[in-house]
């Protein structure tokens, strides 16, 4: 029995990840955070493609060497527009992606507001990643997102955002949803940063209603 036994499947856990950030980052207005997610979920970015409207959340697996993380990715559904995000949005979120537009300094301010809101409302152990998007609009960016002096559309120096992220204990990345640059890395890093102890089974919690309702 001990010889040639099939290896046990990797432990798999669901992680609720919430999206927050400046509404116009990405592509379609108000659907911005989705673009990064679409790239991650779909590995496909088309300029004029409508993002999915109406799914409560999207799911995507992320395979790490020791475990598989299944992200349940929630967007705000526009409820942030009039400050009407419900507490249930933050509830049990183990990870958050706060997106800003590296060409617009105001979007970083907004992102900082969302980070503060997460620190106030979300579970204490939540993993927050600050992500500056639209790296493709920035000319001659270094491979690790370090800017190179020159005329380009960059409005937020990477160093400034990074030092803010370090202060607050956030993961930090610059990405391009358009080219896909570093998008997968963001999710892999989030998956890796979630403490083992925080992970529950695939469907955490007791959900009696799912057992049998005809």
């Amino acid at each position, binding site marked *: 029995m001990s010889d040639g036994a099939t290896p046990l499947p990797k432990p798999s856990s669901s992680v609720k990840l919430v999206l927050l950030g400046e509404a116009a980052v990405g592509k379609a207005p108000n659907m911005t955070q989705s673009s990064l997610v679409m790239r991650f979920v779909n590995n496909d970015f088309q300029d004029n493609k409508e993002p999915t409207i109406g799914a409560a959340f999207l799911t995507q697996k992320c395979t790490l060497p020791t475990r598989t993380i299944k992200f349940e990715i929630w967007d705000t*559904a526009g409820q942030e527009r009039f400050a009407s995000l419900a507490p249930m949005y933050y509830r049990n979120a183990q990870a958050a992606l706060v997106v800003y537009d590296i060409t617009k300094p105001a979007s970083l301010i907004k992102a900082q507001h969302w980070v503060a809101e997460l620190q106030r409302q979300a579970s204490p152990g939540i993993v927050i990643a600050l992500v500056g998007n639209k790296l493709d609009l920035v000319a001659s960016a270094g491979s690790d997102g370090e800017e190179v002096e020159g005329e380009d559309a960059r409005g937020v120096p990477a160093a400034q955002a990074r030092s803010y992220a370090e202060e607050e204990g956030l993961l930090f990345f610059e990405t391009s949803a358009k080219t896909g640059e570093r998008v997968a890395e963001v999710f892999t890093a989030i998956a890796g940063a979630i403490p083992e102890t925080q992970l529950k089974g695939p469907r955490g919690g007791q959900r009696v209603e799912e057992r049998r309702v005809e």
Partner: protein
Amino acid sequence: MESLHNTEWDVLIAGTGLPQSLLALALSRSGKRVLHVDKNDYYGGPQAVLSTQEAEAWVMNTNAGTSLFSDAALSIPTPNPSHGSPKLSFPRAYSLALAPQLIYTQSGLLSYLLSSKVYRQLEFLAMGSWWIYSPQALNLEAPSGSPPSPGQLIRIPATREDVAFSDTGIDLRSKRAVMKVLRFVMDYENQAEVWQPYSSKPLSDLLTHCLKLPSSLHSLFLALTLTLDKPQRTTTSYALPRIARHLRSMGRLGAGFSAVIPKWGGMSELTQVACRAGAVGGGVYVLGKGITTLSTEAESTSVLLGNHDTIRTKWIVGAPDDLGPCTGCPVSSSVAAEITSRSIAIVSSSLESLFPTTFEGSPKPAGAVVVFPVGSLGQSQHLQDNPVYLLVHSSDTGECPVGQSIIYGFCCGESQGLLESAIATLLTAVNEPSTPHILWSLQFKQHHPTDSNQATSQNFAEATQVLSFPPPSSDLVFDDSILDSVKSVWERITESDADRGDFLVFGERGALGEEYDEA
């Protein structure tokens, strides 16, 4: 922030209480332009959930305005100096429910949550035992010479197996009588000839004369009705379906429980999930903005929201509390209003003994019902002519930190004193090593007009229809008639849509990721 001024909508939903939120869910895939507002800066209206800090603001607002609630008062006893006893935690550690109702497993609500696909965002917990407080032992054949027993909590057996095998402090002869009633109620529709003559008489008459149940055991069955009314006003025709609902719900979704409660503060979580579905479907959500005035010019009605935004809409739907300016009659002016005394208490103990797992393999209960029948609180200085109900929620509900629990009290009429004495009695009767105490409590009154529980409608000019949901009842149980009134409003609004589909039945959204696999 964006402006709503001069926008046009198909439906304006006022208030994020349960019926409005379910309507938003029902309309979420209708393609209608829905604007959903709430005058409060939180979701849920009368079904909201409050942190202890939010409760302070709620008390001030409740006492300052006219609403369904009044006479709110907080009391925070000076902390017990004794070492190691739990203390009140930080405000956001608490999610106190204004509507901690339980949902029977046969309720249509659960089917709709399933068919509308929102159940995945909700967690439900099992209600556990029903307890009844008895100032003396219930046994008919108490051994002679035994000392008078102090007040005790008796677990109500709700299945025949439970009656037969469990040690609930009921003697054998009484057990047989209880079994007989259980058998009868499970099949009461087919035995109309037995109960019809007692239809409009108190249930007790039926129990005594037909089912030969000793009167000391009547309270076991009255407790299962969860009615706040006096026993003499609890008629057979009202009580039988409610007891049957309890018995038939037992085991339907799993062993050992008949009802569930949503995690994180009762019905509030449902309103938030339903509103999110509305938003995902394209509805626009605005908190902290209610209907200020309605003005009609020629054929068109315009609605002023808050102080600045004038909008136009074909339909306005809300509860009376949110539609004030539209209907011109605030709820609390209703003469026929009845009052329920309510309380919410944070307790310094998990009250573990109230949450036993009574069936092998059943989920750990997170809630319990404790009933103080009429007269059981006799020693107190207040006369008790209405039953007192306490809903006890464990920390598994997410409503309080581990090691504490929440007691929600309900009693008809001006009964704050009775609620207090019931809670004090419970805390003594649970027999914890050190008597648990109250860390924080909130008392208030809930008004509920007794008239219509139908949705009503009113025309404003040609262009705008105002539809009103009935005000919320103070029932301890989710009332399925809410589903009917939401459905009737949904039907009217979508009347001309050929492809409106079935009420609250939605297909899967095309998920981009992998298929959602059920565990």
